[in-house]
């Protein structure tokens, strides 16, 4: 009875969101899939070309380069961010003095937007590199490590917060029991602590992984792909294909579809891992 009454109110409760969702997501997404098989400059002149865009895409050396560059970037940043984030979280749950202040400081960069972050670090890294007679845009390596440093600065605080929540959920009795049984500090860490905070580790790994794959603003502000698109991550490469080269919109859309499948695969893998963990506990 309750449900039937409620269903009459559909236009009020669900319709506004539904309309916006159709405008903001469903229509663009459907069109995007369709257009990846078309050649077009504006949407109106789309012409079906089948798989041609996908073939062209893999002939583009810059795209292949961006793909590997992004993959490498994601791996390095995931490892460093999670390592430092977890270490700091361990320290901040030991009840040392000033914990709250440290937590505030470490989390702060996370709220600053990517464009602003990019320019802040451009100033600093160029200032340091000037001592060696170089700038960030001399080589793709400088851009790579620059982005790693930037991402670490931004994201360590974020994963730290999640790890702290995870560590605080570990019952203290468990750790004490392990100590009474004669476990050393490293045994307590690897055999008790890490398995217990595994759900947080899964979450953080996948969050940082998708964030690194989708990185755009920081890349744009810090190096803008210089030198000659060598420090371009996937997202920036897709944008430049769309808006930098006339006649390549179809290829750009095809790249975006591939990009979507990569990010989607990461998300599905996360679901799989989290579910497996849930079964175990």
């Amino acid at each position, binding site marked *: 009875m*309750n*449900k039937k*009454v*409620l*269903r009459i109110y559909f236009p009020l*409760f*669900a319709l*506004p*969101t*539904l309309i*916006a*969702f*159709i*405008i*903001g997501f469903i*229509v663009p997404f459907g069109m*995007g899939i369709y*257009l990846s098989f078309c050649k077009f400059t504006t*949407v109106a002149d789309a012409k079906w070309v089948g798989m041609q865009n996908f073939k062209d895409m893999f002939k583009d050396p810059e795209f292949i380069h961006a793909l590997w560059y992004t993959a490498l970037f994601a791996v390095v940043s995931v490892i460093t961010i999670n390592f430092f984030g977890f270490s*700091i979280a361990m*320290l901040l749950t*030991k*009840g*040392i*003095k000033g914990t709250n*202040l*440290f*937590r505030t*400081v*470490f*989390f702060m960069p996370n*709220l*600053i*937007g*990517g*464009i*602003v972050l990019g320019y*802040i*670090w451009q*100033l*600093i890294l*160029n200032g340091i590199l*000037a001592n060696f007679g170089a700038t960030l845009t001399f080589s793709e390596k400088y851009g790579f490590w620059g982005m790693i440093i930037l991402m670490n600065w931004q994201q360590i605080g*974020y994963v730290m*917060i999640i790890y702290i*929540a995870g560590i605080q959920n570990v019952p*203290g009795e468990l750790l*004490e029991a392990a*100590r*009474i049984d004669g476990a050393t500090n490293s045994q307590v860490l690897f055999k008790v602590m890490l398995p217990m905070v595994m759900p947080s580790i899964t979450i953080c790994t996948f969050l940082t992984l998708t964030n690194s794959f*989708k990185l*755009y*603003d920081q890349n744009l*502000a810090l190096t803008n792909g210089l030198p000659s698109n060598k420090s371009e991550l996937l*997202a920036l490469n897709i944008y430049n294909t769309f808006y930098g080269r006339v006649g390549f919109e179809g290829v750009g859309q095809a790249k*975006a579809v591939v990009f*979507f499948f990569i*990010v*989607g695969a990461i*998300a599905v893998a996360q679901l799989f891992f989290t579910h497996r963990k849930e079964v175990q506990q």
Partner: protein
Amino acid sequence: MARNNTSRTLAAGEMLPKDIQKLAKRMSKKKSSSSSARKSPYSGLWTFILSIVSVIYVIPIILVFMNSFKKKVFINKAPFAPPTAKTFANWDNYISGVEKIGFFSAFINSVIITVGSVLVIILCTSMCGWYITRVKTIFSKCMYYLCVFSMVVPFQMVMFTLAKTSDKLKLGNPWGIIVVYLGFGAGLAVFMFCGFAKSIPIEIEEAAMIDGCNPVQTYFQVVMPILRPTCISVAILEAMWIWNDYLLPSLVLDKTKYKTIPIAIQYLKGGYGAVDMGAMMAMLVLAIIPIIVFYLFCQKYIIEGVVSGAVKG
């Protein structure tokens, strides 16, 4: 063996102070820090090390602040030197920067877009989330799974077509973009509200209905107050995203008329061949200050929001 034994007794001996420490932690923060300092001789050392690390952490922001008061030719030459009488530029950088990019109108646009979108998202998606959990039809299930699905899709996938669609519907102004944000941000919000609405006992709502409330009254007087913590979390997450978002507004908004803060800052680089570093530094400072003020006032909510958003998402 012997070593093992001593460590065991030590561990057993430590039990008591540890329990006390835990109790003390719950009772008051002051006591816990003093007892933990007694517990481990390394505590002071770690505080010292972390202090150094956090100073390093803040240095980038301090550097930008410092450089914003230097004349622009000196910024690239010696970014790490503090301003001296010769290099000090007073408020010149701020004045020229604000004039060049129209900072205050960009700020107002950013505020309108962020506050407007967050309010609309909270109101619409919380109603929608509750509706979807309570009315279980194939249609509402489809909508739920589409929302979850949309969380996975990267923006580049819909970037071009979304820009065209919003262009056609004339959404390229600060009010129109709210609709776009509602559509693209609905995924996460609906997902979080659904997750929480499931845990509300249906008896409460039934009681309200029996007392003569229609669904609208039930929603606003019973359900919405219960959903408040989730509302705050969603508001924080969406606000952080929208305030800092660059790509979506840069594609959707009519950039000749409306800029947000990230667009204005990027424009400083794109619009004028050589970058005016002085103005850039000053604008970075102005962009950071509101965020830090907001953070210091709402830190508790922000951190809670981030944790709950991460665990759900």
